């Protein structure tokens, strides 16, 4: 069920502003693809186009093709809601529904799909929380509000919520940037586990994190402020960090700019 994503000649615009230029890449199933690059290079923008979340910003539009197992998710007949149902997302800031209990947060997506069977919901809830490495910590307070957990726990709750609907792809937009080092480690371990089942795309500011968790890494850059961002290169993580093809990548990784 883990699916492959191909981006072909993708250009992204916000109104008249050309945000990202001519991206071509392939996200491989059951692996972790990391996007790195300086601020404003468009890596988060590209990530948000993968489940059409960028449409939330007025005037945003995409040219080119984004194929999910060969089907263009921007086809006229395809509904953004259906796309998001298939491609889960974890955000920079943990965003559990504050009024819902831990349990209701996890099964929120399933309930949307009309699953009412309490036994099934409980099963999925436990499985997802175990999958997110959170079960042991919250099993005694499933009925407490999700907003009462610590930041790291909230983020794992959001991951549990995302995997509870069995998505084909999991997008993570800097999922650790608001967390402490220990929580970050917990999430990174979790990512390593999750890739056995899911296709994962992660945006990160932290190069060490990209090196630790990903199988392939794409480096985004922009020539100057106001110019569109573009993909400099994408390759096996090991190769990017040891022997990149492009000088710009090497400069960024060795900390010579950015």
């Amino acid at each position, binding site marked *: *069920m883990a*699916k492959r994503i191909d981006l072909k000649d993708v250009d992204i615009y916000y109104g008249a502003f050309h945000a990202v230029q001519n991206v071509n890449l392939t996200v491989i199933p059951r692996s972790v693809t990391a996007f790195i690059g300086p601020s404003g290079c468009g890596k988060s923008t590209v990530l948000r186009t993968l489940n059409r979340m960028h449409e939330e910003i007025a005037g945003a539009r995409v040219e080119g093709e984004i194929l*999910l*197992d*060969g*089907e263009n*998710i921007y086809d006229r007949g*395809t*509904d953004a*809601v*259906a*796309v998001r*149902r*298939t491609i889960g997302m974890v955000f920079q800031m943990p965003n559990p529904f504050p009024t819902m209990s831990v349990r209701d947060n996890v099964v929120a997506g*399933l309930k*949307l*799909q*009309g699953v009412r069977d309490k036994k*099934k919901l409980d*099963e*999925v809830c436990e*499985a*997802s929380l*175990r*999958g997110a*490495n959170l079960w042991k910590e919250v099993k005694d307070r499933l009925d407490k509000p999700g907003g009462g957990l610590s930041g790291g726990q909230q983020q794992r709750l959001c991951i549990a919520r995302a*995997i*509870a*609907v*069995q998505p*084909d792809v999991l997008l993570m937009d800097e999922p650790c940037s608001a967390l402490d080092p220990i929580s970050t480690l917990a999430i990174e371990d979790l990512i390593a*586990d*999750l890739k*056995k*089942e*899911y296709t994962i795309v992660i945006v990160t500011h932290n190069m060490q994190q990209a090196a630790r968790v990903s199988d392939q890494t794409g480096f985004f850059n922009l020539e100057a402020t106001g110019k569109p961002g573009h993909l400099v290169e994408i390759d096996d993580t090991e190769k990017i960090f040891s022997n990149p093809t492009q000088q710009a990548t090497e400069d960024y990784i060795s900390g010579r700019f950015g």
Partner: protein
Amino acid sequence: MSTVTGADLERPASEPPTRRISLSRRIKDNVATVLVSLAFLIAVVPLVWVLVTVVSRGAPALFSADWWGTSLSGILPEEYEGGVYHAIYGTLIQALIATVIAVPIGILAAIYLVEYGRGALARTTSFMVDILAGVPSIVAALFVFAAFISILGAPQSAFMVSLALVLLMLPVVIRNTEEMLRLVPDRLRESAYALGIPKWKTILRIVLPTAFSGTVTGVMLAIARIMGETAPVLVLVGYSRAINYDPFQGNMASLPLLMYSELSNPEAAGQYRIWGAALTLIIIIMIFQVGASLLSRFSAIPK
């Protein structure tokens, strides 16, 4: 650790790359869209209906020669003659006096809440502003009647009406000013303090002018709100068919009071005057409303 996730549970054997949303969910979503749009239409209907009624029935009076320049003094109930300038004057002068009293108090109270107020007194004040905003106009009128007319022995007059209007205006002025003051960035205040300018001068010279146009907008909206008030004029001043310039003595007409008293006029000319006065009142209120919203366009505070 093993990843026993929801993925292990049953799912359909074959499926398209993006899954369809179920029919019932789509129906619910569409029904909601229809209902919500319908609600907006329902809200617009009475507005249009009222405005069309007032304009169509009130327009004839406005085009008569005497409407804007004479009073109803000496006009018989059944005569299609006379005008309402005495009532326009009353409406405007009562609002003006109320504004003159309410605006300084309101702005000062807002300054207190934003710049000085701390602790229990400020919380109480803020709470009471909300309560005052909910005080019915008839209660405000009764209060003025009880305090000034019954106990202090003041005569009924337009001024008493203005006092009741002050109570109705204050919360609107305070809340609007407060909001504008809070929009003034703290760095403006801090840069003034750093120059050794005392706090009160900072407020008067820097904070208030920055918030000025927004405050004026709030005042105009408050005026628009009180000009249509009928309950205070019913309780606190007698109706006069002739002009009375003195707000401190004697009966004085105002547009709402004129409409109310013509309501007991059985002649067709009464209807003519009621709707004419209604349209006149709406036009005056609209002038303030539109003025306020034009001003608010220019009231953006520099960031």
